[in-house]
């Protein structure tokens, strides 16, 4: 399946679940509503034509006004690639855990919670693991984060 075929297939089969974002140069980026995330992911994984069984990556993004969670998926057997994006509010963001769909998501979601402060619901082990155990300075990957010993690179 080429990317154009993939786009067509998705617009035919997932019309109200996924909206194509205009960022895709090489691979399509789709927006998914936070409430529908787990259901869509499950369908994508079990779809015979797509079989997105490979969870590549999950990255949080803080754009300053809102939070985003970007899921990169691939399929081992069908050789496809797809990115999903969930747009969240900046404060008190919440997202459902997809670890029942892909167990691999477990640590990525912990990281999302730890560095961005996005609360992951239904996660079995939401504990600190990258930062020191006694860390109390908030969520360091946020754009507005600051600390006394944090030195920014001076502009050249």
């Amino acid at each position, binding site marked *: 399946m080429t990317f154009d075929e993939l786009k067509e297939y998705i617009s035919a089969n997932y019309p109200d679940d996924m909206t194509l974002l205009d960022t895709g140069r090489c691979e399509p980026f789709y927006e998914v509503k936070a409430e529908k995330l787990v259901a869509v992911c499950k369908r994508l994984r079990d779809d015979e034509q797509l079989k997105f069984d*490979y969870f590549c990556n999950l990255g949080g993004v803080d754009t300053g006004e809102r939070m985003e969670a970007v899921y990169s998926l691939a399929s081992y057997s069908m050789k496809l690639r797809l*990115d999903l994006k969930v747009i969240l509010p900046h404060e008190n963001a919440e997202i459902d855990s997809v670890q029942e769909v892909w167990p691999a998501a477990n640590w990525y979601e912990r990281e999302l919670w730890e560095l961005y402060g996005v609360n992951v619901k239904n996660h079995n082990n939401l504990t600190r693991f990258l930062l020191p155990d006694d860390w109390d300075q908030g969520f360091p990957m946020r754009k507005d984060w600051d600390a006394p010993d944090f030195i920014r690179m001076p502009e050249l």
Partner: protein
Amino acid sequence: MAELRTEEFTVNMGPHHPSTHGVCRLILTLSGEKVIKIVPVIGYLHRALEKICENRTYAQCIPVMDRFEYVTAMSCEYLFSNAAEKLAEIEVPERAEYLRVIMLELNRIASHLIFYGVTAMDIGALTPFLYGLREREGIIDLFEMTCGQRLTYNYIRIGGVSKDIPPQFEPKCRETIKTIREKLNDYEGLLNENPIWLVRNKGIGVLPADLGIAYGVSGPVLRASGVKYDIRKDDPYSIYDRFDFEIPTRENGDCYDRYLLRLDEIKQSLNIVEQALDALPEGDIKAKVSPNFKPPAGEVYARVENSRGELGVYIQSDGGKKPLRVKMRGGSFNQLQVLPEIGTDCLVADLVAIFASLDIILPEVDR
């Protein structure tokens, strides 16, 4: 007489332990010598690379990427440049692509040689360590004569490579390939049939294919379990579709297969380097990229096949000269997640062998 009783106890392995390849800490619950629970604790090398990248220009990000996966720094550089090129739609000159492939594959060999040495050392054989690192020096010399660095190269840049190879590169490279080919026989003779090696590795730490898939494992670890998935073939980047090479796979998915598979991969990579040297065209080595490189707003996820599985980077650009977000993804992150699954119910000594055969390095996990 007091009643005899057994009790589980907890052992801390790491963060400073010679066989955890860095600073991983495993909290083991043992019953006798049997491991019944593993809890990996990471973050001892969390250097905030992603935060740093957000405050650097695109060109300045490349040295930071070097530190992300320093054993195969070339892959990281390539990955970032590739992602930035995709964002800005830059054409890379032919010669630069060939040079990149040569460097990527040489780096893969170097990384597998380190694996060969270090794994054997973990299991208790010191000689392979000395052999593996001896041959690696030949490759490091090649890198050094090209870009002047031994480990953190900053060689592959956005739009091409930073310098052309010197004239003595090609003969030296062919010589190195020849030596490694010869020495590979020695390596195999040393360990493949070695009874101690077999007992320590065969049937240990079996990773079933479906478990690997569920945990997003990639690279040699997954191929040793029989899944033929290699990004170089299945989602080709650069000019890999022009070369003739095989993707080796193995069936059993145990430590021994993972070891054999990496030796097979070295042979394939040697072939690729040779083919690339034969076909190396003349021409430019760098596309015109302004020093004020500003890709248009957009986002991209790029990935390459590294010696430890899929290496990926997600870049979001807002049109400025600094990326809005850089998220790095390393194969070891998933491999370490799967360790508690395959490492339980084995002996502590086997756990060391499993850890080594997964070839986990910590900067990739912690970033």
